[in-house]
């Protein structure tokens, strides 16, 4: 008994460590006198690698059978308002927290030479951003969540604006104004939501997720509140037609900025939908499923079409993110266990694959100093190791079986069809049509990625400025190898991760189900998904 309490306290401490260690590092970088650039990079890498240790330990200790948040710390913070410092891990944020910690040291290592000026400031901002991202993921209190959510803005704003490309200022202002606009309307909705719940609960304010999720908002308010939350999250995802900030931000951002943006920040939008946006307003969501499903499928197809015609190598990957995150949204809306679990896996998978692709693009940009696709060719002969890595990550992005991309997209499509079939039999053909259209995204994805790889890697040898491109350094090889190992792990052995997140996915489906309906959410076909997972 005593041991269990001790272990619980220990684990809660570890979670706090994951959250606050980067902030401590940022403070150290700000205050320590006379650090060389190398020392700053090494220190940041070591610190972020240390941050991974408790994150992995907590992943191992996470109990798939236990309901609700684990390793929780809950301390009253602004007592008058019922705001508490409440953090915990649960099935929705577990994979993303591990992903964020895992990408941390790889980002610094992978972009070791990409940042040459004001190295100390850059790494301090990177650490601040890391803290804010973990905080937004582990927060179990709406006020705390909003704090961390907004705190992610400024470090990214400075990263793009200081170290970005030629149009960096335009891109960074667009990024901040776009995302802040959504957040500010969400803030109004947060206030209305919390005060409406307090009215129903005898006046006591509470921002705790658990309290807010337990009592759905009044039906008359739900559409408005849902609209505000959905706008904030949809901008972050981003869903078509709110995606126009993304290509600019991605293209202008320095390599590590792009990696974090694609690897973690975009997932904040889908995580927001999974954790809050959909479960808080089940009635409004059910009324708007067709609209959101359509938008998700439009994102998949339109993102893929846009990726196909880009001449800028970063833009191709940026638009492919729009397409891949469309799958996540589709899975979340599929009303099917396989679909939701697929969405959760797809979030982690896209984090790994997009991070790898942006690192690869950054590495070639450091050598060639241009992002024009036409300037490159025949990299397979100039830099064979690079070409191999590029092919591997491309295949993962396309969804080759055995890679994480396959697990995610397959389960999402499976879920989409499984959810659409009963509706089709009931006379509603739209979900089925959308599922079919979404499948075309897989083909389109293969088209643009393989076209990209073909012109880039094969064909006549071309290099900007006619200086042959050098191959990957051992440091770069190591980073990409570790990253791809994770892609394979999630592709070949998804059962562990899916088992740990299954409880959360079931809970999510129960939250969305109509109150009167019988809560059986595992009809025949999704069990195929579960069977695949084992």
């Amino acid at each position, binding site marked *: 008994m005593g041991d269990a309490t001790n272990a619980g306290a220990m684990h809660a401490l570890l979670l706090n460590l994951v959250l606050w260690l980067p902030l401590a590092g940022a403070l150290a970088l700000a205050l320590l006198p006379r650090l060389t650039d190398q020392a700053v990079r090494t220190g940041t890498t070591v610190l972020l690698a240390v941050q991974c240790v408790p994150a992995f330990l907590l992943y191992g200790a996470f109990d798939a059978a236990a309901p609700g948040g684990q390793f929780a710390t809950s301390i009253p913070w602004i007592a008058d308002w019922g705001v508490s410092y409440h953090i915990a891990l649960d099935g929705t944020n577990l994979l993303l927290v591990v992903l964020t910690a895992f990408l941390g040291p790889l980002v610094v290592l992978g972009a070791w030479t990409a940042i040459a000026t004001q190295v100390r400031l850059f790494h301090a901002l990177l650490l601040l951003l890391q803290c804010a991202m973990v905080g937004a993921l582990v927060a179990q209190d709406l006020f705390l969540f909003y704090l961390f959510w*907004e705190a992610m803005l400024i470090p990214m704003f400075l990263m793009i604006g200081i170290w970005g490309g030629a149009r960096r*200022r335009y891109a960074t202002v667009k990024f901040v104004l776009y995302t802040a*606009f959504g957040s500010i309307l969400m803030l*109004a909705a947060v206030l*209305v939501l919390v005060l409406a719940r307090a009215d129903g609960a005898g006046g006591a304010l509470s921002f705790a997720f658990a309290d807010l999720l337990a009592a759905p908002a009044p039906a008359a308010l739900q559409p408005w509140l849902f609209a505000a939350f959905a706008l904030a999250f949809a901008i972050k995802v981003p869903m078509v037609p709110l995606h126009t900030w993304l290509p600019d931000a991605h293209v202008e951002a320095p390599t590590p900025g792009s990696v974090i943006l694609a690897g973690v920040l975009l997932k904040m939008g889908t995580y927001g939908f999974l954790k809050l946006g959909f479960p808080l307003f089940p009635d409004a969501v059910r009324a708007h499923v067709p609209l959101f499903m359509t938008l998700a499928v439009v994102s998949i197809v339109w993102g893929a079409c846009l990726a196909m015609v880009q001449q800028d190598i970063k833009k191709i990957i940026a638009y492919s993110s729009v397409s891949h995150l469309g799958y996540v949204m589709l899975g979340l809306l599929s009303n099917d266990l396989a679909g939701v679990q697929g969405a959760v896996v797809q979030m982690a998978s896209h984090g790994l694959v997009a991070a790898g692709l942006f690192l690869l693009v950054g590495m070639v940009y450091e050598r060639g100093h241009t992002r024009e696709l036409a300037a490159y060719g025949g990299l397979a002969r100039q830099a064979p190791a690079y070409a191999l890595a590029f092919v591997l990550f491309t295949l993962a992005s396309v969804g080759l079986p055995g890679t994480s991309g396959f697990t995610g997209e397959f389960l999402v499509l499976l879920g989409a069809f499984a959810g659409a079939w009963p509706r089709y039999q009931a006379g509603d053909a739209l979900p089925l049509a959308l599922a079919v259209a979404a499948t075309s995204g897989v083909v389109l994805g293969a088209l643009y990625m393989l076209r990209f790889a073909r012109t880039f890697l094969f064909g006549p040898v071309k290099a900007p400025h006619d200086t042959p491109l050098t191959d990957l350094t051992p440091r770069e090889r190591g980073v990409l190898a570790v990253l791809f190992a994770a892609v394979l792990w999630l592709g070949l052995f998804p059962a562990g991760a899916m088992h740990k997140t299954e409880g959360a996915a079931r809970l999510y489906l129960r939250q969305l189900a109509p109150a009167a309906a019988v809560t059986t959410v595992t009809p025949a076909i999704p069990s195929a998904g579960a069977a695949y997972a084992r």
Partner: protein
Amino acid sequence: MPGSDALWAMLPEHLLLGGMVAGILCALSTRTRALVLPLSMLVVAASAVAAFWLAATGVHAEPFPGQYQLTPAIAQAKGWLLALALPVLLLLRLDSDDLQFPLLLVCSLYGVALLPSAMNALVLFLGLELLAIPVYALIVLAFRRPQAAEAALKYLILSGTGSALFLMALSLLYGATGSLGLDAMGAAAASADPLARGAVLLALVALFLKGGVVPFHAWAPDTYEGASVPVTAYLSTLAKAAVLVVALRLFGDVTLPAAATDLMAVLPLASIVWGNLAAIRQPSLRRMLAYSSISHAGYLFYAFLGAPGGRDEAVLTYLVVYALATLLAFAMLPADADDGRRDRLDQLDGLFHRRPWAAAGMTVAMLSLAGLPPLPGFTVKFAVFKTVVAAGHPVWATLGLAASFLGLYVYLRVIMRMFMQPAPDHAETPAVPAVPGTGQAVAAGLLCVAATLALTVAPGWLFAQF
């Protein structure tokens, strides 16, 4: 015993008065002239401590029945206001050889200290005038620049107009209700008598004029620009706070009629929108902060849409955080011999490369003013809009929040200048002689940064204060 009440309950005021007299005596002799500034700081600090001490003793006193009262909440508010004057005094740079400055400031603070205790509209008027009259002189003190006289004149005329309107409102109030007590305004707001309605309307207009709310704001940018930096800091923080304290005394517990509610929403909303939009185009930091203060006046008056009882907390916490951020911004201005030049926004270009700590401090100030989490500027804005939503005005709250979005760009622009621009050729050069008082400005900045960060970590503590 009334006599000892007058002694103890008014201790902060007595200290200020004593400091004023002692300061004037010190100023007479060349040997003691150097003591005036430290003495003023000491006196202001002592009176703030006295106010906090009175709050801690749980004092309930009414030394002048019906005129002046002290409760722990009032003493607490008084203590915070006086404490905020310390960074203003520390901000003295060029003007430190002008002994009038600290003396006049202490003089003006006497008016500030009086306001939270006022139980009668006439005492409020007295406090406002005590506050304003030294400020006219303070603005002219920056006589090295021709704008100073213009600024002082504008402030004199418009503040005078505000006072006249306020007096007119009081006479109407007395005519309608036969009383000048604070509850008279509540009675007037509830009555249908045109005389009483006129009193409420005129009082609101007077407060909007003095607080710089659109459309009565036009004096603020010119005045802020013409005055010297510490005086501008005083005008935009404590002078504004004083107006809000008067508003709280008069309208803090008043249930506003529907028509007045709309007035209380539309004009502050216009203030937020216009203040934020106009701030984008300003070439100097002082003009920018002037428009920023116009938009913040909007947020502050927005709190009056909330239910009676919750307004004090929302307004006072907002004032503290807003004042800290504004003072921090002024403290971080590059030191330069020319008061007009150092205030140009392009002086901030590339500041991070030259003086990283000043840039970091300015960034904290800007983010707090913009209301971005996790800085306390967000928490207090949240508190204001929370009271507005709780009172059943979610649409006004949403509009206000959407308007605050406009302000984001204003403050981000300053951050972009400091971090993303190369330094201009004519930026401060080592040739510029060291400016006396720079160390003090650093101290003021540290004070404000420490307080702002402390309130970031423990916002609940601030809300427990009021």
